[in-house]
């Protein structure tokens, strides 16, 4: 069984292949988590309202729109781009995007000749402050195992064919440095302002598994 099927099955508590079936009976795992949460609340170890606040943060406030704004500004403002490439943590903090899993940022720039791709082979390191929580495929064994040994094959599988004349750099996130790819600005976007440009930027392009084009979202977000 493929990894994502497995994740989804656990995810929905659904064992019979109806992907979008409404969950009526809580799964074993949902009950187990409920029991653990109740125990920790009873012991005074967690406040459920704080849990709600954490979830709200990552469901609604921190996500790839943050990174898209950073990218759009780098495209629009050469002085900002210079700061971003020299000290990404400080330049990203200008937007107020700071903190957990984005404490130490590095931006790597894609060009027609150079393609950067980010992975964490050892776990799931990902720049939360600018991209939010990582998608399942990024955390999955197929991506983690193959991104370093066969980056071109991985990109092809995800719909991006690179020429032999393009250099590929893979960034394996083995420390607390977090990597954000600055994608190439799409052709035809010359007249667009920063807000419109940010709309073009996808999560996948900022991981380095997609290129951006006008009118077609690279990442099917």
């Amino acid at each position, binding site marked *: 069984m493929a990894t994502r099927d497995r994740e989804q099955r656990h995810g*929905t508590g659904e064992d019979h292949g109806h992907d979008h079936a409404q969950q009526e009976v809580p799964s074993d795992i*949902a009950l187990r988590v409920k029991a653990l949460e109740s125990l920790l609340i*009873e012991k005074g170890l967690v*406040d459920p309202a704080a849990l709600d606040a954490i979830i709200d943060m990552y469901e609604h406030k921190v996500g790839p729109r943050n990174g898209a704004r950073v990218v759009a500004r780098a495209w629009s403002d050469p002085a900002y781009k210079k700061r971003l490439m020299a000290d990404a943590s400080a330049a990203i903090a200008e937007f107020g995007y700071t903190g957990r899993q984005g404490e130490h940022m590095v931006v790597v720039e894609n060009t027609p000749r150079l393609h950067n791709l980010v992975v964490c082979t*050892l776990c799931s390191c990902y720049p939360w402050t600018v991209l939010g929580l990582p998608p*399942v495929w990024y955390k999955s*064994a197929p991506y983690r195992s193959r991104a370093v040994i066969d980056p071109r094959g991985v990109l092809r599988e995800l719909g991006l064919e690179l020429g032999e004349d393009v250099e590929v*750099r893979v960034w*394996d996130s083995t420390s607390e440095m977090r990597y954000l790819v600055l994608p190439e600005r799409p052709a035809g976007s010359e007249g667009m302002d920063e807000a419109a440009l940010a709309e073009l930027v996808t999560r996948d392009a900022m991981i380095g598994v997609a290129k951006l084009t006008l009118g077609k979202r690279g990442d099917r977000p």
Partner: protein
Amino acid sequence: MNGIHDMGGMHGMGAIEHEDREPVFHAPWEARVLALNLAMGAWHKWNIDATRHAIELIPASEYLRMSYYERWIARLVSLSLQAGLVSRAEVESGSPDAGSAKRSPALAPSAVQPMLGRGAPANRDVAVAASFKAGDKVRARNIHPIGHTRLPRYARGRLGTIARDHGVYVFPDSRAHFLGENPQHLYSVRFAARELWGEAASPRDSTYLDLWDDYLERA
């Protein structure tokens, strides 16, 4: 440790399954697990390296069977037991042991944003000599520690070039085991794809890893 988590370069893991319009969480319990892990971290009984090691200690067959957030449940339970925040009997029964003291204060809702916005920087403002500088040729040590390490197997023994000195950072191999921070220089090291994977790899391509002084020797 040479665990299943260290999977860079492995074959046989299947196709990459990209999900269109993927939700942040696939079920409400996943969100609760994420939040429980972050909120419990606020007791400062462990650190990020210890959390990674706790996942690495999940037996390989279990690791591959579990979904991502199932691993996070296993990790939270094992760290909480180890830190004495809960007992085995409490985890099994779901109720506090008779006579156990109630803790306080738990992470407050108003403290969530400041905590997440601050994060936990791993750089340290201490004077430590750097063994290498940009441009130096290095070899990743051929070491196989049984504890936590961030030196993947695929790079061990391989020749690389220091691309950049990030500065002084906490050493995960020490902190994961609560043996102190052992801060030292961390470098971005470039390895040619052919050095890592042989002649079948593209001559242009490379992989960059962030590696600490203790992982490297002069080549």
